[in-house]
């Protein structure tokens, strides 16, 4: 269903003063694949993102991206290799407009000596417009990002992640604070991405997960618990007992 192996998380353990937020966790992701990661609060989903993106150093294990070991690289070096992550809390530059936010993310050459110029190249300009269109912020483009509503900020940040052109996109609870309609739009957005990029989505909203129609990995207490389609996972008694309960 998808291309060659892109990401391999290989037995990583993240230890916080004796508490193992991730415990020899492994997973792989193919090029062009979308994967949903669910699991109880505290299962280690956000920590997984942190480990991939270089925010926390695993005590054991490796993260391989296109076969290259990422362990020990700086955040921006990892971003340069084509991984970008959206945080659980929206991370945007509040002081500049939505468009400028996206434009910054869209810059291909991010070295300081390339910055002594004004504006951005036409082809990047076009991609900025395309991204804004795609996340539905075209008419809010000139608003200061800090003044956007919570949900709009989330979209803007998704837009920024897209604009970086990253091959692997990590979305940690992209629908947090969104209503059903926005959620559907977000799902649509992510499905569109599927052709060109690999995506890892973390969320608790099962209806959203359903709309994504992608394979699901379930985590529990820092470990791998299950993997399968949404339906399979929903029906799994173990998943029901540790996570879903009966209301969902």
């Amino acid at each position: 269903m998808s291309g060659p192996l892109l990401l391999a998380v290989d037995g990583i353990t993240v230890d916080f003063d004796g508490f193992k937020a991730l415990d020899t966790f492994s997973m792989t992701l193919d090029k062009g694949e979308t994967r949903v990661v669910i699991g109880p609060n505290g299962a280690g989903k956000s920590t997984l993102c942190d480990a991939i993106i270089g925010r926390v150093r695993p005590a054991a294990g490796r993260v391989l991206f296109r076969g290259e070991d990422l362990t020990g690289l700086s955040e921006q070096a990892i971003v340069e290799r084509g991984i970008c992550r959206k945080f659980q809390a929206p991370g945007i530059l509040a002081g500049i407009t939505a468009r400028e936010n996206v434009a910054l993310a869209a810059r291909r050459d991010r070295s300081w000596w390339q910055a002594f110029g004004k504006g951005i190249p036409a082809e990047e300009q076009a991609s900025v417009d395309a991204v804004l269109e795609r996340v539905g912020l075209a008419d809010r483009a000139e608003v200061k990002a800090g003044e956007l509503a919570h949900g709009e900020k989330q979209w803007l940040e998704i837009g920024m992640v897209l604009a970086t052109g990253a091959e692997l996109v990590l979305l940690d609870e992209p629908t947090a604070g969104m209503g059903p309609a926005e959620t559907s739009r977000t799902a649509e957005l992510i499905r569109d991405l599927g052709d060109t990029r690999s995506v890892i989505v973390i969320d608790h909203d099962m209806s959203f997960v359903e709309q994504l129609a992608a394979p699901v990995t379930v985590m529990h207490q820092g470990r791998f618990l299950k993997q399968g389609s949404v339906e399979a996972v929903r029906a799994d008694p173990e998943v029901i007992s540790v996570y879903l309960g009966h209301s969902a």
Partner: protein
Amino acid sequence: MDAALLLNQLFNGISVASIYLLAALGLALSFGLMRVINMAHGEMLMLGGYLAYLTLIWVPGAPGILLAIPVAFVGAAAMGALIQLSLIRRLMNRPLDTLLATWGVSLILQQAARDIFGAIGVEVRAPDWLNDSLQFGAVVIPSARLFIILVTILVLGALALLIRRTRIGLTVRAVNQDRMMAGATGIDAGRVDLVVFALGTGIAGLAGVVLALLGPVTPSVGQSYIVPAFLVVIMGGLGSVLGTTVAALLLGLFSALAQTVVDVSAAQMLLLLFVIIFIQVRPQGVISIRSRALDE
């Protein structure tokens, strides 16, 4: 280098560290809480020193020096409270501006001291038992320095108790970590700021008293201790009392030992170099607090 020199300097280092610590504690506390640095903090040392001087004119001898301690504490705390209410409160969330504005306060206080007490230093006559020294073989321990170490240990103990064990301490830590939420849970953050700031400047006032036992009290006495105190805060890590203590010890000992081989001025240079190298290794300071917040 001979062993006696080394031992003497080790002891001196601890006493210098004590002064650094008393000078830095208040800075560290209010930095942790309000993210502001009070550049007039050195002048709280000065104030403490002059208050000790005045107290000892009024009550000479041993009772005087013991009385000077609460007098200086209260006096400097009151001055701190005044600065907090009139200036720092207005500059909430503008730490760099606070730094500059309090520098203005520092200039004014120094000049005022010059106009009141004269530009030349005044001398605090300590009782004879503080001018003595204990001798252990080749190691000579001046009792004034011993007294300083003792005062520091007491202050530190009291402070640790206050922060760890009392409700005031809890509210201080809560405001420290999330000011908005502390207000919403019923904590009067403004009062916590005031109390902590006054407490910190009061401790600086104490530092002024012990300094007066070693040297003259001059309008600029604070300036000579304030930069090392800043370095202590930097090395200590975000407003942590333990970190501040460890950093003060490191810097005090480093400076004292450096002085056995080089001049005081070279020792100052080395001190900065030491701090810059230190932050290469531990940029978060001695005590680092891990947090999940994206921006610290």
